């Protein structure tokens, strides 16, 4: 959504990297240091109009306003959960929408951002997949999900676990990570950001080489045939090859890799799964994060009861695999894991 009175033909500044801003000011004949000044206004201050960039000469602001707009957009709807979670709906152009979940929890607050409108991965258990794929978000639209919510300054962690597959939109995701972590940008620690993938190996490799953010991989079962039924991506990038690729990178320091594991009753919660998971992840410094399944319409799957989730965690822990159970949040507003959708 553009700011009032600014048609969309104007190019958004928000979402540009310092390199892009440097090229822009050069092209406009402005002094080189103006690029850092603009970045400062875009990513560190709470203004919404180019005219408010008061340390830029008036003429420069006027010149920029003729070709560019600030580029942030406010959420069009917010839903509040009884547990404090809030779900924001943002426009993403041409009557398309995305969702973002703000999840406060004691001394931390996590923002779950989307990277695409819809998703083309078609996982059996995911509501986003049911709406198909409508497009990629720009870096600006990704970072905007943080900067345009009232809780912006309370957010301590960001997870790319909303709508879409981040590594299917790698260029814009990497750009957004640069804006979030660069000293000229929002200067967040990459240790506060986790990018989640279902295992697009080439994208994951490039991400691990270019970014220091944490990685999460949707695993859900270690068995090939089972995973193909749940996640079509297994036919192109088998999870064993995903794990093999991860082993080529260093996770012994502060960077973490975790494996997300939704628990399906009678499907992926057996002793054989514990055994195979322990074998697959043996020696890899990582965490397995068990997630309760939140049923979606028409699903043939059911969630594992809590007691068995606990037993599964204990069995994996006994085999030396660090395992946790993720708390379900925002279930009453369809903001919990796997439920984000803007199909309607």
């Amino acid at each position, binding site marked *: 959504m553009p700011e009032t009175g600014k048609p969309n033909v104007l190019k958004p500044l928000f979402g540009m990297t310092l390199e892009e801003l440097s090229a822009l000011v050069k092209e406009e004949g402005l002094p080189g240091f103006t690029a850092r000044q603009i970045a400062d206004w875009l990513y560190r201050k709470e203004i919404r109009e180019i005219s408010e960039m008061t340390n830029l000469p008036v003429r420069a602001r006027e010149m920029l306003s003729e070709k560019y707009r600030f580029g942030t957009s406010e959420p069009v709807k917010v839903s509040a959960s009884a547990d404090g979670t809030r779900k924001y709906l943002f426009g993403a152009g041409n009557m398309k929408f995305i969702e973002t979940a703000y999840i406060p929890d004691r001394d931390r607050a996590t923002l779950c951002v989307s990277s695409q409108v819809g998703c083309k991965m*078609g996982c059996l258990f995911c509501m986003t997949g049911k709406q198909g794929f409508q497009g990629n978000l720009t870096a600006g639209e990704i970072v905007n999900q943080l900067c345009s919510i009232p809780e912006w300054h309370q957010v301590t962690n960001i997870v790319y676990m909303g709508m879409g597959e981040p590594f299917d939109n790698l*260029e814009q995701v990497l750009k957004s990570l640069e804006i979030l972590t660069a000293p000229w940008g929002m200067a967040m620690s990459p240790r506060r950001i986790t990018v989640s993938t279902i295992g697009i190996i080439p994208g994951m490799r*490039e991400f691990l080489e270019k970014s220091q953010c944490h990685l999460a991989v949707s695993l859900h079962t270690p068995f090939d045939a089972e995973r193909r039924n749940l996640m079509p991506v297994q*036919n192109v990038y088998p999870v064993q090859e995903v794990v093999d690729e991860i082993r080529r990178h260093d996770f012994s320091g502060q960077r973490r890799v975790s494996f997300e594991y939704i628990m399906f009753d009678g499907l992926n919660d057996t002793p054989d799964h514990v055994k195979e998971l322990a074998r697959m992840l043996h020696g890899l410094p990582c965490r397995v994060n068990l997630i309760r399944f939140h049923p979606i319409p028409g699903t043939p799957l059911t969630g594992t009861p809590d007691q068995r989730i606990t037993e599964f965690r204990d069995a994996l822990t006994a085999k030396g695999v660090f395992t946790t159970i993720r708390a379900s949040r925002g279930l009453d507003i369809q903001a919990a894991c796997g439920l984000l959708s803007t199909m309607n």
Partner: protein
Amino acid sequence: MKSWADISWTRAVVSENLKIAESAYLLKFPRTFDFQAGQVVALGTDPDLAPRLYSIASGEQDPFVDILFTEKSGGSLTPMLSRLKPGDSLMVSKPFGTFTKIQPGSVLVAAGTGLAPFMSVLKSGKARGATVIHGASYPEFFYFDEYLEETLKEKYLRCCSRVAGGDWFHGRVTAFIEQWKGLDPGRKHYLCGSAEMVVQTRDRLISRGVPFKNIDAEIFF
């Protein structure tokens, strides 16, 4: 797939590039590698442009590799692929992927160029007793229909969403599945197409009693 830098690839010389329907092409180059029916290769024309994945549409022992693709207006690669002429070169990765375990007697459901991996399976003699359900917007997009009619006879079923009146079902594949009397939940079902097609077809199959364990899919990534 983002870059050619870290994948193994070779250059192939185009043998033929046939326009088989509006915006649809069948690209051929000599087979210099072994592959399994159902696998994909990454293709490109320029090392600076991101490679794209395409299913191989030819048989495992065929002398040429066939790639079925449609030209996307505004696309970064397909307009260049469509302009390739015999003698031109293109970049081809090693074949990979595991959509290769198709069992005899299965139901193969495709939309548009999603037919490609199933053509490879059929031409490799690996899908005896298979039924093919192919969806297209117009009859001209029933690729390889002569081969499929001859090979599969009554087990070749077509769905055309925009044109009624032929010997096909008038409607989308999903609508066909909803009323298909020949549906057998005990058979394996393999789907190939866009995310929307795969998700909606899978939902229809499940609602008609096909266990999800009998459904495998490949999506155009």
